[in-house]
């Protein structure tokens, strides 16, 4: 028992140092820009870079659009499958897992061939078309996470009974979906939204190959050309990921404390 506990602590110490040292290294490096003293110069340099603000803003916008359109696609689909088409559930679940199986770079390769300027649907022919395509590609990437989060939330509230109750009270479809279902699966929607946010903010492959000025390619560009700014950006990116995951935890905890009453 004692040896076991000692082993556990050793494992945790090794794991923790593996996790923490690179973070410390990054943080330390990001403060080293001024010779001989720690400073926030690298951060200042990053924040004053107009490209940082533009790409960050672009990716934020993309993330928000991805979340909105993704949820408009995923929530009704998950609902419909649970309510009316339980027999296709395995198929839908399999499809939602495909983006984990097919590497992102393969998917975007397909887009570039299928939607190039000489095809029937020349999405890459115009800026707005490419932006749309990028948003759809982000929706594809986040599909496994969004669908799982929403579907789990729907299982918890038993949508069928909820719908029948609403129908028996005379509610119409839009009312049922937006007043009964959406609010009750909010925890799932929010968890899916935050993880999507984290994915989109750091995504590199899709944006780089579609040539859009997103945050991921910008990070890569800075990494190739500057010394200290990349570390500052890594710290910022880590903070964003941490924030998203923290919000997911918060949402699920909030949901737990509310659900017994609901």
């Amino acid at each position, binding site marked *: 028992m004692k040896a076991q506990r000692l082993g556990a602590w050793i*494992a945790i110490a090794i794991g923790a140092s*593996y*996790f923490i040292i690179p973070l410390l290294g990054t943080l330390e490096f990001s403060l080293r820009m001024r010779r001989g003293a720690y400073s926030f110069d690298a951060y200042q340099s990053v924040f004053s870079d107009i490209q940082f603000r533009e790409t960050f803003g672009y990716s934020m916008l993309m993330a928000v659009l991805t979340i909105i359109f993704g949820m408009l696609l995923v929530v009704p*689909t998950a609902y419909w499958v649970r309510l009316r088409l339980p027999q296709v559930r395995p198929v839908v679940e399999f499809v939602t897992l495909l983006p984990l199986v097919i590497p992102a770079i393969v998917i975007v390769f397909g887009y570039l061939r299928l939607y190039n300027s000489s095809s029937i649907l020349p999405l890459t022919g115009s800026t707005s078309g490419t932006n749309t395509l990028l948003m759809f590609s982000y929706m*594809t990437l986040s599909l496994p996470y969004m669908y799982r989060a929403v579907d789990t939330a729907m299982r918890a509230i038993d949508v069928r009974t909820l719908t*029948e109750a609403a129908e028996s009270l005379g509610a119409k479809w839009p009312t049922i979906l937006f007043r009964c279902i959406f609010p009750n699966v909010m925890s799932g929607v929010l968890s899916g939204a935050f993880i999507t946010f984290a994915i989109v903010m750091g995504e590199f492959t899709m944006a780089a190959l579609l040539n859009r000025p997103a945050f991921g390619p910008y*990070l890569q560009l800075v990494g190739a050309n500057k010394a200290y700014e990349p570390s500052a950006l890594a710290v910022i990116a880590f903070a964003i990921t941490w924030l998203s995951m923290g919000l997911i935890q918060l949402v699920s905890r909030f949901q737990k404390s509310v659900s017994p009453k609901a």
Partner: protein
Amino acid sequence: MTTTTAAAPLISKRAVIDWLGIAPFAIFALMFLIVPTLYLVTGAFLTPEGAFTFKNLADLFTPSIMSAYWISIRVSVASSLGGALIGFFLAWAIVLGGVPNWIRSGLLTFSGVASNFAGVPLAFAFLSTLGRTGLVTVFLRDWFGFNLYGTGFNLLSFFGLTITYMYFQIPLMVLILTPALDGLKKEWREAAEILGASTWQYWRMVALPILWPSLLGTTLLLFANAFGAIATAYALTGSSLNIVPILLYAQIRGDVLHNPNLGYALALGMIVITGISNILYIWLRMRAERWQK
């Protein structure tokens, strides 16, 4: 449900509505997931003129492409095995090691973050730590007079990429394996013990056989996860490390293979490898869940 007095025509109309309900999803999946993939898959079997051929697949077996696959597989295997091993011990420590609860919740929260902390920033983090002027490199040099790069170590190499990938592989293993370890019932251990089994016998005859589908399955998932990753490797090594995703990236940008259809074959190879490991993962998980009842 609603009334069904006007039987026959209503039912068929209802069926149409039922299927229309998932039409948006079906169209989305076809347009942005299935057709693009199928396009590449079929392209892999076609000549640039559109005739059927196996030549593209055969061309994959040229030394430069084979070496790309080989190094990709090696990095993926090494990082998934390393991630699985360390991840297993961490999960074991927080579930069965008798450590305080805050360590468990802290590690799980952190794993949620770290498993999603990949891509370009992860490369920066390791460059700042183990690069030529990174924290650990400098620390070892200044305090111990140890020249890390003198040993032949290079972050921009197979080994460097492997330990960088393990940064998201370990947490992923912890996240997936912790519930599996929680599923080991205390009574199994007690039943084995009271029947005379030692701790080692319990692990060998009961716990590990129960866990192995989860363990192996998760390792396969980690493998696929590493195999398809590109951003970290690209930001870390530029195009100096010849792994498949980077080769494909270069091919997409500039047709470096001078044959677009060979690019499709390259992509098909990736799909096949990640697909097989994912299918095995799903199969093993179903096996594991059968026992969890």
